[in-house]
């Protein structure tokens, strides 16, 4: 599957099936700091992602103060 990361924008190819939690662990991303989105839908942590399609891993931390 294609994995789109933001800030900065970049793309990775990751083989499925893999759970959302396992994918975030593999990419060393903190679940508190991101959302996983497919199309316009949120993907819950226990969902299995297959080889097809595109998912976005969107950071949720913003730095204004």
């Amino acid at each position: 599957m294609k994995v789109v990361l933001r800030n900065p924008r970049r793309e990775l190819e990751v083989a499925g099936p893999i759970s959302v939690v396992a994918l975030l662990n593999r990419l060393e991303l903190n679940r508190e700091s991101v959302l996983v989105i497919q199309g316009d839908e949120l993907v819950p942590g226990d969902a299995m992602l297959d080889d097809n399609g595109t998912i976005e891993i969107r950071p949720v931390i913003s730095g204004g103060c």
Partner: protein
Amino acid sequence: MKCRVCRGPAVIDVRRQNANYCRDHFLRMCRDQVAKAIDEFDMLHPGERVLVAVSGGKDSLACWHLLRELGYDADGFVIGLGIGEYSDASTAYARTFAEERGLTLHYCNLRDEHGFDVPTAAKATKRVPCSACGLSKRHLFDAAAREHGYDVVATGHNLDDEAAVLFGNVLRWQTEYLGRQLPVLPGGNGFPRKIKPLVRLGEREMAAYCVLTGIDYIVEECPMAAGNKHLGYKEALNAIEAQSPGSKLDFYFGFLKRASARFEGESGGEPVTLQPCERCGSPTPAAVCAFCKLSERSADCEPVALRERR
């Protein structure tokens, strides 16, 4: 994952609550948490007009949306800060949000109306950009509230923002700031009341709220905020939260409940007499307010061009 309320398929987990939610019950939980914060901290009263400080990011747009959902008379105000394409894009998100919902959005362009922008002010003052940005936003939100007759200014500060600021202030024991780190700052003397209705919600929930309600917001980070201390504090707190869910909530609300009152006397010193600024008329303890001083210093500086984003 099943929704804790209806046992239907869940779309998001909120680990500090040890709960999962479907779309509808997650949105209801967000509304309930905002209503609870407003009630708990006596933020708003019937008939008051609210001006939401809008940036085009997830928090301020979600805040505006939630206040309207709860029935409050809330309009928006966005500032063109002159931070290159980032400012243009974020202002466009705010405009689109307002237009699609038929809401009133006030607008001010810092360079056009006051002769400077944030990058130039940062260079002129030799301070971090967030300093000039924050000063300008506070001044302009207050002035807009006075000009348009709003009682209250609402900002999109969420639990993560407040916990991170508290973390930074505690690390350096900046007691004068601890004394006024509250979800509500009272108004008076020409200043509107300031409220933070999102203090019971984390920024992951705010991003999820936007995705689930179809609110399009700027995901890109402000180029001038990259690498700032505030982001580092958030990352540190999220590392703790991952190991111990609920830590951020306990840290911030524990401070409000057990400690904040101890610092009340640290923030103000002697009461100051306010008078109208000679330049703009805003209430200030000095002859000329800090914003007008910033404007004057920046006007003498060559405008700073930002590199285009790739």
